[in-house]
């Protein structure tokens, strides 16, 4: 017997399914009502003679109002219920386990913070909110795990975040759901949800290369970022210690939050949003760093704690 309904393996899945069943009920009701009425009227009022004509009825205001207002009320219920579920989907909780995802034709690359790298298979713990920070190296892909009821386009040039909390261990299919070329239907994988203790074991058995942040630290030196970005505020670039997550005042007078996207943009297009009080002299690293290296740098900068005596200008 082939499956007719997907597994529900995340905290959101049951909420989405409840909404889905409500929609099914409404659809079944109105679908059967209309089909039933058509069949009933076609039979009951079937034309008996060639000359027979129908009753000269033009309309009824009460019916028009009724069948406008009632569908309107039903759709508004759907909207409000749907919106509340959607809000929960769109905003991850405060505490999340973050994992970076890079999609490229035609594979998924995962980077855990402590350095574990995976291809097409993603290990996560059950019962913890997991936030995926995704980007693409080439064209638009889409990260889709049916069992979790989550989906988001993975876009080149941007970070898109998506979150879930797995509720039971298992292997769940991962599909790319935005057409991306020849091997689009081959860009599939699995999310492996494990009991927390097993997940810890799995984590420990892995990465020899060190965490993302430490790889980023090394890159920071190799690319000579540290010549301008110095913790003692003597450099030609802004101090990065304690910067992540703070509000930055720009040359233009606007402010921006120093999040992953801002850090990435500052490395690739430094002149785009220059910090107030600094010259736009930072060279661009477009073409000199890969998406994965960008993630390592982002993680490194995230890890830089504010030093007590440094004043941010």
């Amino acid at each position: 017997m082939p499956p007719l309904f997907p597994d529900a393996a995340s905290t959101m899945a049951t909420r989405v399914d409840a909404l889905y069943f409500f929609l099914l009920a409404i659809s079944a009701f109105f679908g059967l009502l209309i089909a039933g009425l058509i069949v009933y009227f076609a039979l009951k009022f079937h034309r008996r003679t060639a000359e027979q004509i129908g009753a000269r009825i033009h309309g009824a205001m009460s019916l028009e109002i009724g069948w406008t207002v009632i569908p309107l009320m039903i759709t508004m219920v759907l909207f409000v219920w749907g919106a509340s579920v959607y809000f929960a989907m769109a905003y991850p909780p405060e505490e999340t386990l973050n994992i970076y995802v890079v999609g490229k034709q035609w594979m998924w690359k995962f980077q855990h913070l402590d350095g574990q790298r995976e291809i097409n298979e993603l290990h996560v713990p059950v019962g913890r909110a997991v936030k995926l920070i995704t980007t693409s190296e080439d064209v638009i892909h889409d990260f889709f795990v049916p069992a979790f009821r989550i989906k988001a386009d993975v876009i080149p040039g941007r970070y898109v975040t998506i979150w879930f909390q797995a509720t039971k261990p298992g292997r769940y299919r991962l599909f790319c759901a935005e057409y991306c070329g020849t091997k689009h239907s081959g860009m599939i994988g699995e999310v492996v949800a494990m009991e927390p203790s097993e997940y810890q074991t799995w984590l420990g058995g892995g990465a020899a290369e060190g965490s993302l942040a430490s790889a980023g630290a090394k890159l920071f030196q190799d690319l000579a970022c540290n010549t301008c970005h110095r913790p003692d505020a003597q450099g030609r670039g802004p101090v990065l210690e304690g910067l992540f997550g703070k509000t930055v005042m720009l040359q233009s007078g606007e402010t921006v939050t120093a999040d992953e996207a801002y850090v990435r943009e500052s490395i690739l297009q430094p002149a785009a949003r220059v910090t107030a009080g600094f010259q736009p002299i930072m060279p661009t690293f477009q073409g000199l760093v890969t998406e994965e290296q960008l993630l390592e740098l982002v993680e490194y900068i995230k890890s830089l704690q504010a030093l007590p005596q440094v004043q941010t200008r």
Partner: protein
Amino acid sequence: MASSTLLIPPRHYLNDGYGIKSWLLTRDHKRIALLYLAGVTLFFFVGGAMAVLIRIDLATPPGDLVTDETYNKLFTMHGVMMVFFFLIPAIPAVLGNFLVPIMIGAKDLAFPKLNLFSWYIYIVGGLFTLYALVSGGVDTGWTFYTPFSTVASTTNVIPTALGIFITGFSSILTGLNFIVTIHRMRAPGMTWFRMPLFLWSIYATSLINVLGTPVIAITVLLVAAERIFHFGFFDPRVGGDPVLFQHLFWFYSHPAVYIMVLPAMGVVSELVAAGCRKPVFGYPFVAFASLGIAVLGFLVWGHHMFVAGESVYSALIFSILSFLVAIPSAVKVFNWTATMFKGAVSWETPMLYAYGFIGLFTIGGLTGLFLATVAVDVHVTDTYFVIAHFHYIMVGGTIMGYLGGVHYWWPKISGRLYNEALAKISAGIIFIGFNLTFFPQFVLGYLGMPRRYHAYPPDFQVLNVLSSAGASILGVGYLIPMIYLMWSLRYGRLAGSNPWGAVGLEWTTTSPPPTENFAETPLVTWDAYDCHAPSESHVA
């Protein structure tokens, strides 16, 4: 009410001039309608052939009928052919061209030469696109998402984009022609609210054609320009935004689906009125619903982009608007159903198509509510659920409306009656084949089978096999009318001016009509669908 004469008139538009020049240089809207009929039928079968190949390949989990590259080209061409060269033009250019002047009591459209020019544009655009297909194909999907279409694809994107660009002008100019005709060429006494509802639908469709098509024109031009000149509008490496393409694309392509369905709704209004020998229930509500759909249809494009990086607030605004656009369609469905109450309900073939439309469009429309609910859409978008949804509307809706209209007006167009038994059987085969093809796809979609997948996990096979079986039945169903309709041209019984006993100016003139449509300009003093209207035209 019974028709008077069974004789074909000696002189009518089909024998008013012979030879290929009299057809290729005609200005007669009725002949141009038949030229379009030839074109849309050709492109329909090209697109249909692609569908057959796709469904055969999808009967087994691995992609084993054709290569990945070929499969991607097949679904792209299926979409391009069906959307731009069949669904958008079919009812307006075939039935609209034939009927709009006759239904308002005019001799022709406002701009007959422009009408012929529109047909040539359509054919040139279609040939461009066929050339792109034959010389290697296109693999971007009919949606051309960037940066894949501008940077990564190595296939014939440019000729396809240009073919669509050219054909777009056919839609724009036809829409322009209809708008001016309906405004300025109605016969004396034909007020707006005495017009048949088909004309309200065509008018609303023409508004969308005129306002929306130019946007897809500039969008495909930008894609072509980016490929040719390496501009960077949608290329993130240069600072461009690939999602901006999606906004531009869907700003047209959502209203486009209303271009596809509104005319079919107009046909259904006519079929239901004629089939029940009653005025359509709630005429002004149905008329305004058409306009409402056209206006609201321009405000919902973002519901195609809920998972494409849209902000939460944009998503919610598009969601609520998408719910609102469903309401006028629901109003129409209720009004059609109410028309059947105490009607003299016929079971002839065109009416069967109309009833089928109402049922299948209702299912398609209800599944649209699933998609308007953002939280559910996140799960089902880009899956077979969406494919099932839009095929219910476009095939279960538009194509059934088209076939119903072709059957209903066939006697007027050709002067002949087709074989009713065969026609009923075909309608039944189409209905069964259609539902078997597309209903399993709703289940597949919620299970998580993504769109545009050549190969799929083995446990999806049973549902895919059901769908493919349905497709083969549906294909047979579409072929049979070709046979009996062509046969009727030579051997069918003569129809006479009003074989259905219906009300409408088109039934007061001969079958086939004379070139100038009416012997004298009619003077209209009756409401649409008024059974007490005169059954033959005369000078008042």
